[in-house]
C-alpha cells in the first residue's frame, strides 16, 4: 500500500514534468497541425546544450535552460519558415513529405549529438540533485520537486499567454480558422511562425528539466516520441489544461507499472496508452474537434 502511495506521488510529480516537455508539442502539433516528430529530438538537443553549459561554466541547469531559450525561439522561427516554404505552401502531398522531413531532422540531430557527445549517459550537477526530502517513510528526491515546480510554472504561464494576451489569442484563432484570420487583415503565417517559435523556446527550460530529472543519452528522443505524443493526443489537440491532466495520468500510470512490473516494461506504457487513445477516443479527453 505504501509502495502504491509512493508510486502515485512520484507519478504526479513525473506527470507535471511530462506536461512541461509536451506543452510545446501541444502548440506546434495540437494547434498548428505541424507533424512535429522532431519535437523530442529538439528537447534532447536542449538537454545536451544545458549539459554543455553546466559542465563548462558551472552554471545552474535551470539558468542554462533560460540562457538557451531565446536561441531556441529563433531556431523555431527558422524551422517553421523552412517547413512552410517547402511543404505547407506547396500544398499537395505535404503530409507524407512533411512527416518524413521531421523524421529525418530528428535522425540528424540524434547522430550529431552522438558524434559530439558520444553515446554515454550524461548528467548535470546542482545543489538539489541527489538529495531527498523525507516525509515519514516517503522519500521524494528534490530534483523531482524542482522539476515539478518549474513545470507547473511553465505550463501555467503558457496557458495564460494563450488565453489572455493578444498574440496568444491570435494563435488560437489561427488554429481555429486560418482563412478568417486572413480576412480580418492579419497574416496567419506570421502568427503561426511566432507560435512555433514559442513552442520551441519552451524546450529550453524543458530540456533543463529533462536532464535534472534523470541522466540523458542521445537516443532518449525515441522514448519521448511516445510520451509527448501520448500526452498531446490524450489531452485533445491543443488543449493546454488537458495537457496537464493527460500528463499526470501518464506519469501515474508509468510510475505504478514501474513499481509493480519492473523497469523493462516502462518504455511501452506511453506507446500503449497512445495506441489505446487513438483507437478508442481519437479526439482525446478535452478535444477541440470531434
Amino acid at each position, binding site marked *: 500500500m505504501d509502495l502504491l502511495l509512493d508510486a502515485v506521488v512520484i507519478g504526479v510529480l513525473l506527470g507535471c514534468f511530462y506536461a512541461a516537455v509536451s506543452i510545446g508539442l501541444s502548440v506546434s502539433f495540437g494547434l498548428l497541425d505541424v*507533424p512535429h516528430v522532431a519535437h523530442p529530438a529538439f528537447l534532447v538537443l536542449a538537454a545536451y546544450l544545458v549539459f554543455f553549459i553546466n559542465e563548462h561554466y558551472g552554471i545552474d541547469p535551470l539558468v542554462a535552460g533560460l540562457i538557451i531559450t531565446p536561441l531556441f525561439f529563433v531556431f523555431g522561427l527558422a524551422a517553421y519558415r523552412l517547413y512552410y516554404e517547402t511543404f505547407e505552401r*506547396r500544398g499537395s502531398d505535404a503530409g507524407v513529405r512533411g512527416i518524413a522531413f521531421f*523524421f529525418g*531532422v530528428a535522425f540528424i540531430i540524434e547522430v550529431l549529438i552522438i558524434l559530439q557527445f558520444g553515446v554515454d549517459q550524461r548528467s548535470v550537477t546542482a545543489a538539489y540533485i541527489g538529495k531527498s526530502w523525507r516525509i515519514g517513510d516517503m522519500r521524494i528526491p528534490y530534483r523531482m520537486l524542482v522539476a515539478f515546480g518549474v513545470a507547473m510554472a511553465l505550463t501555467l504561464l503558457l496557458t495564460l499567454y494563450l488565453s489572455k494576451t493578444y498574440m496568444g489569442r491570435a494563435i488560437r484563432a489561427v488554429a481555429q480558422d486560418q482563412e478568417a484570420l486572413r480576412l480580418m487583415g492579419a497574416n496567419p503565417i506570421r502568427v503561426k511562425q511566432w507560435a512555433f517559435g514559442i513552442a520551441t523556446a519552451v524546450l529550453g527550460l524543458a530540456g533543463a528539466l529533462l536532464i535534472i530529472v534523470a541522466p540523458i543519452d542521445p537516443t532518449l528522443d525515441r522514448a519521448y*516520441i511516445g510520451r509527448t505524443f501520448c500526452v498531446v493526443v490524450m489531452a485533445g489537440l491543443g488543449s493546454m489544461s488537458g495537457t496537464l491532466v493527460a500528463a499526470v495520468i501518464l506519469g501515474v500510470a508509468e510510475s505504478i507499472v514501474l513499481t509493480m512490473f519492473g523497469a523493462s516494461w516502462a518504455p511501452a506504457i506511453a*506507446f500503449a496508452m497512445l495506441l489505446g487513445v487513438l483507437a478508442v477516443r481519437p479526439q482525446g479527453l478535452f478535444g477541440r474537434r470531434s
Partner: protein
Amino acid sequence: MKRKGILFWIGAAVFLAATFLMTQVVGNQYPFFAGYVILQFIVLAVAWSILGGYAGYVNFGTSAFFGVGVYTAVFLAKAFGAPLLVQIATAAAIGALMGFALGLLTLRMQGIFFSIATIALTIIIETVITNWRFVGGAAGIQIERPPTTPPFDNYVQMLFFVQALLVVLAVAISRYIQNSWIGRGLQALRDDELAAECTGVPTLRLKLMACVISGALMCAAGAPAAMYLQFANPASAFDLNYSVSALAMSLIGGTAHWSGPIIGAILLSATQQLLTVTISSEVNVLLLGVMLVLFVVGAPEGIIGLVRKIFHSRNEGKE
C-alpha cells in the same frame, strides 16, 4: 505492355542467374556479406513503398516487421530446429497478419496519427520480446547455423541467393500492383481518400491488401537476418534505423515508379557499406538523414522525378 513484361522477366532471370553464378565462382566472402545487406534493403524499401509510396501512408514500423521476422526465425530455429525456408514462410505469414492489423488501424488513423501508431507498435513489440525469456530477453541469443546444403559451399552464400529470390519476388509484386487496378486504386485514395471512397474505390480492401503484402515482405526480409548474424537481440532487431532507411531509400529513389525504391536502396546501402568500412557507422546514419531531408525538400519526386524532369525538358527542346 506485353513486351515490357517479357523484358522484365528476362531481366529478373538474368539477375538471379548472375547472383547464383556469383555464389559458385567468387571465393572471397566479403561480397556476399555486403551484398546480402544491400539486397535486404532493396526488399525493405520496395515493401515500404507499396504502402508508403502508392497509398501514401507513412509507415515508421519497418523495424517492427523486420524484428518480428528475425524473432520468428529465432523462435522456430530454437524450438523446432526448423529449416530456413519454413522460417521465412512463417515469418511472411505472421507479417501478413500484422499487416492486416495495421490495415485495420488505417480505418481510424490517417497521416501523422498512423505514422505515430506504427512507431508505437514497434516499441510495444520490442518491449514484449525484451521480456520474453525463451528467445533470450534483452541480452539476446546466439543461433547456430545448420550445415550448408549443396550447391552452396557456404551458408552466407546461400542466404545471399535466398535474399536475391526475395528481391525478385518483392519487385515482381510491386510492379504488378503498380500496373494493375490495385495500384490505380491506391493512387486514387492517396490523392483523396474521401473522393476515392465516394466514386466507388474499395479503399479499405485496397489498404488492407497493401498493408498485408508490405508486412509479409518486410517480415520475410527479416527472417534470414537471424542466421546471417548468428545472433539476435531486441535492440538491434527492432532498430529504428531500418524504419528510417526503408523510408529514406524509397523517397530518395522516388515512389512514382516501382524501380524508384530499388535505385534508392542500391545507391544508399552501397554508399553505407563503403562508409561503414571506411569511416564509421554513425556517419552513414547521418548521411541517410541528410540525404532524406535534402531530397524531401529539394526533389520531392526523388531520383525518378529528377530523371523524368531532365527527359521531359529535352523532349520539349526538340519540338
